[in-house]
């Protein structure tokens, strides 16, 4: 089992390297000169030359890449061009905010998404199933930032029951609305996937056997069908991860939460390249590693993969 884990982790190394190359390329394809972009074209040639040396722009590309990669691996992502602070430290400071938002959303979507999916599948073809499918179809077309804005208007501006924006004192209250919005957004995908996985399982012979021997439907659905659906549902988490990361970028921006997503967007807006590259690298690495973990979880949950 440990060997399997190590093999999977080793397998993600080429992808991680490729990710680092793409991240590095982002800065390299900037039209014009990043230094002039930074100090303006009125700076003296001396200043420009100095800064160029400081940023290592006078070296050939592959040397710059290797130097950058080496520093990145030791946790040095450079300094922000805007604030002058180390990018790595800024990212670490923002992790807890994003983690709390993501965790809240994940919990909400696990309950709502799986619950709705199983319920809808157990009522297959009946009115309740049609209502759920129609709702999912309509909800799936609403962008998360529009849903977030409407939620903000209703609960924050009209009803005034929840804080609208910002972190405030950092209490959980400030995560309720963003967490719920993002959670419900994720639920749409999870419910849809869970439903189709469950429908496939419900058709199997052993479910018919379970029903035939007179088990209550609740036991058939939850103990027999759902437990087998869980294996496939774990892989679906992989699909939700991308939605979670992308959704949190948008949600943090709207609710003004100082997380990594918000940091990324601000950095992109200011064209603060060290910060953009740092955020980009950090989130992509988290994404790749999380996907590897999901793969591993799938392998562990399914004896055919684990032992085969």
């Amino acid at each position, binding site marked *: 089992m440990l060997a399997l884990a190590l093999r999977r982790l080793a397998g993600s190394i080429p992808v991680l390297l490729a*990710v680092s190359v793409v991240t590095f390329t982002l800065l390299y394809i900037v039209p014009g000169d990043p230094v002039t972009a930074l100090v303006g074209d009125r700076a003296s040639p001396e200043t420009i030359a100095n800064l160029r040396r400081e940023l290592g722009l006078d070296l050939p590309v592959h040397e710059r890449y290797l130097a950058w990669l080496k520093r990145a691996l030791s946790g040095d992502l450079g300094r922000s061009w805007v604030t002058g602070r180390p990018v790595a430290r800024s990212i670490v400071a923002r992790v807890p905010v994003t983690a709390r938002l993501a965790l809240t959303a994940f919990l909400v979507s696990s309950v709502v998404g799986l619950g709705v999916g199983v319920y809808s599948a157990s009522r297959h073809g009946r009115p309740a199933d049609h209502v759920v499918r129609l709702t999912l179809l309509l909800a799936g077309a609403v962008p998360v930032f529009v849903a977030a*804005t409407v939620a903000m208007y209703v609960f924050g501006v009209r009803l005034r029951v929840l804080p609208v924006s910002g972190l405030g004192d950092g209490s959980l209250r400030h995560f309720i609305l963003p967490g719920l919005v993002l959670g419900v957004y994720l639920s749409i995908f999870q419910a849809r996937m869970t439903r189709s996985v469950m*429908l496939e399982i419900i058709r199997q012979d052993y479910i018919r056997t379970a029903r035939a021997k007179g088990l209550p439907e609740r036991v058939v659905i939850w103990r027999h069908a759902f437990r087998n659906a869980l294996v496939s549902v774990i892989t679906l988490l992989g699909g939700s991860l991308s939605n979670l990361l992308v959704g949190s970028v948008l949600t943090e921006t709207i609710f003004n939460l100082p997380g990594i997503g918000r940091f990324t967007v601000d950095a992109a807006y200011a064209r603060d*390249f060290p910060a953009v590259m740092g955020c980009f690298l950090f989130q992509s690495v988290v994404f790749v590693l999380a996907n590897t973990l999901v793969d591993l979880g799938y392998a562990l949950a399914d004896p055919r993969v684990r032992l085969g």
Partner: protein
Amino acid sequence: MARAAGLPMAVAGALLLTLVALAAVAGPWLAPAHPDELSLAESLRPPGPGHPFGTDYFGRDVFSRVLYGARVSLAISLSAQLIALVVGVALGAAAGYFGGWVDGAVMRLVDVVMAFPDLLLAIGIAASLGPGVPSVLLALGLVGWPGLCRLVRGEVLALKERDFIDAARAIGAGDLWILRRHVLPNVAAPILIATTLGVGSRILQEASLSFLGLGVQPPAASWGSMVHHGLRWLSRAPWLVIFPGLAIAVAVLGSNLLGDGLRDILDPRLRD
């Protein structure tokens, strides 16, 4: 039963998309005002007889802006999906048909692009090339092709073992001929479905990028950037967010319905 549900879905989707396309094409004739016409005296008017969707801070007519926004959003999403379609189908067909190192190289490339959450990649590109229509097109084309590529590769892999491909080769047909005349027509249905659904994703992604301020730049307005600018006036003028938001939802719903409906009609294997 699923076939029965597919047709109404496809028709409903096609109707919604026609509505959006009509807004995009006939916008200038339907719009009561020019989308950039300022009128500070009419700042932040709620929806009413003169302005069905209200006015924004500068007194611009929101209905006219939503109509013009259809043009921007639709043009960008369709072009981006076209890029994704061409690249995805070409690389996917090549990978599936030729196999070997071509397949290996293409699939590694797919792995790398898919190693990034889509919007993040788009944000990175917008940051490095600078926000604007060209970088949005590039970003959305780039995140769009790997899905199609995988799909086409899989279909082609299955097809190329079939007898009629062997027969074509036996009578002396070349690779390109076989790909164009025998392979691709047989993959047309799944490509059509994936492309229709892809347009919906592109509309959402363009809206998200523009919403973040990294897509279409003022004075041009897409639905996403309208929501972005409307957010400031949320407590006083929620219609600035609601109507462009609704427009996005209608367009995305249209492509999702049409795509899902087409799948039910065309591809019996994928029905539930």
